[in-house]
């Protein structure tokens, strides 16, 4: 099954004297974002001369280049070539993290409000979060902050009118149509559902980032006692498994 045939032709957009944007479409959609991450891997594999780094986002990739080594014109042509061949890519493996979360109570102060607004029980909200097949659409805002797509539509609701000044590290949150895990203590207007003992950003760890753009996530509910036990383990990392992109996409679409 090809997931990219329905997209418009890729577009190159100038982004100053040392960057280009390759845009595959617009909006926030799972198959579009999957194509972005496939193209990002393809760009890395092609090892084009002069590329400094890439920033894959919802629907496009910012490609930073060294103008001493390459120029926008030849690089742009090479990038369009890679984007045009996207549909020929075989299934590519992805990482799926199984992230334990202690939902509700002191760990997730907004769970009951989220449930009430969506007309569901708190247990039902937790069940939905734990069956959703989340995708790391992109990282941005702050180091390690992953925007997760795949929040079931019944749970979509506006952000808090009054953002909290501090939410603890490891907060599992939802806002608008998205979910997230906060990497560090930070202000946030998202709704707090629970907390994970897994740290998605830790400078003392190598590599410091748990999640990469394109990774997948499945939440699993744990008790407060289990949360305390896992948080007490030094260097605790959640389990992860390798999944193959097209199969996972089908699952995601059904979720």
């Amino acid at each position, binding site marked *: 099954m090809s997931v990219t045939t329905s997209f418009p032709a890729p577009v190159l957009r100038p*982004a*100053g004297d040392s960057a280009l944007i390759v845009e595959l479409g617009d909006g926030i959609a799972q198959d579009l974002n999957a194509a972005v991450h496939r193209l990002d891997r393809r760009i890395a594999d092609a090892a084009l001369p002069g590329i400094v780094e890439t920033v894959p*986002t919802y*629907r496009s990739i910012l490609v930073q280049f060294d103008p*001493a080594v390459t120029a926008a014109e030849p690089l742009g042509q090479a990038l369009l070539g890679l984007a045009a061949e996207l549909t020929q890519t075989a299934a590519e493996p992805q990482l799926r993290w199984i992230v334990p979360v202690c939902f509700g109570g002191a760990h997730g102060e907004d769970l009951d409000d989220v449930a009430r607004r969506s007309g569901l029980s708190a247990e039902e909200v937790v069940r939905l979060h734990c069956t959703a097949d989340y995708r790391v659409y992109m990282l941005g805002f702050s180091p390690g902050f992953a925007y997760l797509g795949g929040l079931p539509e019944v749970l979509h609701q506006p952000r808090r009118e009054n953002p909290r000044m501090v939410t603890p590290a490891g907060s599992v949150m939802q806002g608008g149509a998205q979910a997230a895990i906060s990497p560090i203590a930070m202000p946030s207007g998202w709704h707090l559902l629970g907390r994970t003992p897994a740290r998605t950003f830790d400078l003392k760890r190598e590599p410091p980032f748990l999640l990469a753009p394109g990774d997948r996530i499945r939440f699993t509910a744990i008790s407060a006692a289990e949360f305390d036990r896992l948080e007490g383990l030094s260097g605790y990392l959640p389990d992860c498994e390798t999944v193959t992109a097209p199969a996972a996409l089908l699952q995601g679409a059904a979720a």
Partner: protein
Amino acid sequence: MTTHLRVVAPGPSSTIQDRGRVGYQRYGVSVAGAADPLLHAVANALVGNRPGEGAVEFTLAGDSVVVEGGPVRIAVAADAELTVDGEPVPSWTSLRLTDGQSLRIGALRSGMRGYWAVEGGFALQPVLGSIATHIRSRMGGLDGGALKPGDRLPLALDQAADRGERCLDPSLLPGRGGRLRVMLGPQQDYFTPAGIEAFLEEDYTVSHEADRMGCRLDGPVIEHARGFNITSDGIPLGAVQVPGTGRPIVLLADRQTTGGYPKIACVVGPDVAALAQMRPGERLRFTPVDAAEAGRIQARHREMVDGLPALLQSAGGFALYDSGRLLGFNLIGGVVTGWD
């Protein structure tokens, strides 16, 4: 004992900067790095460092530091008054300071930011490959913050090399006017023709809302054609984003990695540094260039930075390269026409 510089009185906002944290924007990590890479490179060249070595960037006024150990070779690239133990010394030259001597860097007479570098650089642990300070995410420098009284900056060299001092005639550096060259895009299609015309034909003024992250400009409103929300995408250096107010913000070294406002244009690299040196109230105008011209501007800038060591003179006044030799360099003609 390791040689240190102890901060006696820091400037209002002084941070250690290098070329920035490259390769981690995909994880949401800001690049940071020197807001004016050319002056940063000048400070480093004066003490014999490579261009990207960590140096202190100060804002509006410099720092007072005292040497513990040494001797230390230090140079300030800034239009500011300097004293060593209370005696005036010149800027734009390397100085050798011995144990207990103190350097005081006064207020900038022009520009927003100055730099000082020490021979060999600072002995600080890189965070994600860089010692650049990014205060918002508390990364780099000394505990991720600005210099504060009592900080002790460890130096990589215990003793300065035994050699003569070097200076630079700052008039050899390119002049910077209020003309910022931009490449339109990536989202110029989010603006009306009248909006783009205002952006390119009218004067803008640097507002007081300006820091290392971005610089908000006052001036004519830039009209959006279809709202001011885009699906968040990557933000390159110098991007001119236009939020709902219609007033542009130019994003600088500490910019966030992604954002959801449309970007009408991007300022070319060397002119981003020029903007970072402009004070609130200064006027500027944007001029469009195409990709080929932007490439030539970048190339001339690189030649300038690479050619800095050749512009240095011995501090005794003896020119390492006489003026005839200087004029023979391609870079001089190129730079002058490039910056006029």
